[in-house]
């Protein structure tokens, strides 16, 4: 067990896919040589979003659906910090949907890990935006009537420069994807299949395990057309891996004083510097 980032008691159900994600995350950070104070995890509310309490890094455990806005600001305020988001599918694609689509446009330097269990875990089993059509839940008694959101395709459409998928049941793969996402300079979406053993009796470990396959080594993730095709694959075989990756100017790159200067948080504050603006009013 990785203890570099300490070990805390969790409130998750035994067998929950979140354990695999937490383990892989700790090891990914360790292997990247990051220290606890150099990392911030922002999260919303949900089972996934409890992660800041289970790992010793800086943490912003905010409101349900609102992990992205603070994460963006933290990156802008202090470009020296590694900003990671861990949150649920409901948090990210449901309550937080508007932030999701617009955050991609901002391309702040954030690794965004969505624990996608295709259900609302913490509130006991209602449909999430990624719950399959027809699935019965603790609220949708006659089955979900909406088509699910396709996170990968949506991220590609919004112009994300890094889009990947992994599975909490595949430690090595997940750790690799996390390292890639964290190392990527810009907004990186990593959608992670995470069995919820309590409330999602359809998308079980077995269900995912039988379906996921790793994209081949010769898969060209810089080809957007390829990426869109892969994004549509769903059913008996579901691809995991880096689906799309290109370099793009980040939010920081786009603002000169952020790019060339020290971290914004280190700026010296001096009221007298603003006195000259009085001239606008003379």
């Amino acid at each position, binding site marked *: 067990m990785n203890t570099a980032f300490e070990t805390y008691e969790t409130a998750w159900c035994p067998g929950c896919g979140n354990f695999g994600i937490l383990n892989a995350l700790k090891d990914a950070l360790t292997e990247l040589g990051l220290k606890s104070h150099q990392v911030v995890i922002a999260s919303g509310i949900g089972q996934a979003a409890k992660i800041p309490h289970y790992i010793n890094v800086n943490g912003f*455990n905010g409101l349900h659906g609102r992990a992205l806005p603070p994460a963006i600001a933290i990156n802008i305020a202090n470009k020296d910090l590694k900003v990671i988001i861990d949150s649920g599918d409901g948090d990210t694609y449901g309550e937080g949907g508007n932030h999701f689509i617009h955050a991609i446009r901002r391309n702040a330097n954030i690794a965004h890990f969505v624990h996608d269990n295709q259900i609302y875990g913490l509130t006991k089993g209602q449909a999430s935006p990624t719950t399959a059509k027809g699935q019965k839940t603790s609220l949708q008694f006659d089955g979900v009537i909406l088509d699910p959101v396709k996170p990968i395709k949506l991220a590609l459409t919004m112009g994300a420069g890094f889009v990947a998928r992994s599975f909490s049941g595949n430690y090595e793969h997940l750790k690799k994807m996390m390292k890639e996402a964290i190392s990527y300079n810009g907004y990186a979406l990593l959608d992670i299949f995470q069995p919820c053993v309590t409330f999602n009796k359809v998308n079980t470990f077995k269900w995912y395990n039988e379906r996921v396959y790793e994209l081949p080594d010769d898969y060209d993730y810089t080809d957007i057309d390829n990426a869109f095709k892969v994004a549509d694959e769903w059913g008996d075989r579901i691809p995991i891996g880096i689906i799309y990756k290109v370099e793009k100017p980040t939010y920081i790159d786009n603002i000169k004083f952020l790019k060339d200067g020290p971290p914004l948080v280190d700026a010296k*504050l001096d009221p007298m510097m603003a006195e000259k603006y009085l001239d606008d009013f003379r």
Partner: protein
Amino acid sequence: MDYNILIGGAAGQGIDTISHIFEKTLKRCGFYVFSMKDYMSRVRGGHNFIQVRFSHNPIYSHDEYFDAIVALDFETINLHAKVLKTAGKLICDKSLSDDDRYISFDFKEIAKKCSNPRVAGTTAIGVLLKLFGIPLDVSYTVLNDEFKGDVLEANIKAINAGYNLVEPAFAITLPKKNENIYISGNEAIALGAIAAGVKFYSGYPMTPSTSVMTYIAKKSRDAEIVVEQVEDEISAINMALGASYAGLRAMTGSSGGGFALMVEGISLAGITELPIVITEVQRPGPATGFPTRTEQGDLRFIIHAGHGEFPKMVISLRNPEDAFYQTVRAFNIADKYQIPVILVSDQYLADVGTTVKPFDFNKVKIERHISGSEALEDGVYKRYRFTESGVSPRIIPGKIEGVTVLIDSDEHDEFGHITESQEIRIKMVNKRMKKLKLLEEEIQEPLFIGTENPDILITCWGSMYGPVKEAVDMLLKDGMSVGALSFGDIWPFPTKLIKKYGRFAKVIIDVEQNATAQLDSLMRENALVKADEYILKYDSRMMSSKYIYDRVREISKTSSMY
């Protein structure tokens, strides 16, 4: 001397620009100037107007009767000619009226001759300047700041042409030049924020709050401030809180509807104990209401914004000068107590232009209350350490090797870790609530103006200060025993002076620009003092000093019991 001018026209006719030239010229001559905007929620057409008062002495509010009117459309004549004083002058284009009491010229033709049809209004300003005997050369300095090249040329020609059309009509002595600046409420907030070291502003446009963000954005490159227009107001506050967590002075703001979307975030600031300054520039509600008009209708909503119980501070702003200094103070208080501080303004104050002494930047003290490693105990950092005062030392994440900062929207222990303990809950609530006690010491009692221990006590808050101050001055001249308490800090509610003066007053008159007397409800709740009479206006146009004066006189007559 005290003159009052109205410039009216349709949206898109440029009355903003020409009035600005007029106002700035007056200001640069050394006059005290006060301008107020009345505009519709549309970009072209309709009827807008600006009122400009100027004098040798400080001016605190607008007035209802005019010495001169510049009419760029027929509506202006139609609506406002009746409030022209007997000796007043009305300036308009020939095409608008053939009434020979008016000063009318073919401004369009003149503009054409200046080779720019859009300078007709500038010619009218030329006329206006001459009527009051204002020297033209001062106006050139303003034109020089506003325009360039051909457009500048045309405007100079136009203002000259106007100047030559008439003879002076008012006998005016020019004041001594002075150092004053001329600034609006929103600009003063923006300048205060920049002076206080704001480094992050996230917001979403909403009239009448937008110009705070716009001014900061204008300076953002030079002052190295990030101004981010976000997808919605929810993002605005959560982003600002992220910036605050990371160590920046952060700010957001909106008007009622946008602010409504922030209230969950305010509650988040409450439990996470993150400093944040939020501006609420009120407009008449509910919902979309009147986007470009004024009201003081959101006070209670603001005070109680956010679910659950936590300390916040609410400061209402009186005028641009107050706006500047209180904005600075808001940042310092937010940092000191790690709480949300809300600045309450309104469309009236947002848009008024006022001459004030240049803000004293030497007086601006930036007090961050951020700790270094002295915040650790045996190398351990607890974000929510229980302390005597309730305030825990705050450090910046990432700045101390091996030390992490965890904040949490759930109820949490001293480390910021989620808890379900009753004992910790009680301690954490007490810790947060202790700050309310500290705030009570920080709080500024209302400003008192007027005779000491007056029979008639007026109560008001925020931007109502100006109209009330002038009304009180007028009433005092009449020899009445009158005084007023003008509340700035409004939550926690300062109770000392209202209790003190309330006891002696024969009649308390509560003056508010709303329908439900919200300040009065706060006085009742917090000081068990109730107003006897009310002057409430909720037609979305700010009441004037004259309006208040008349009603106070009426009340003092009819209320035989006092």
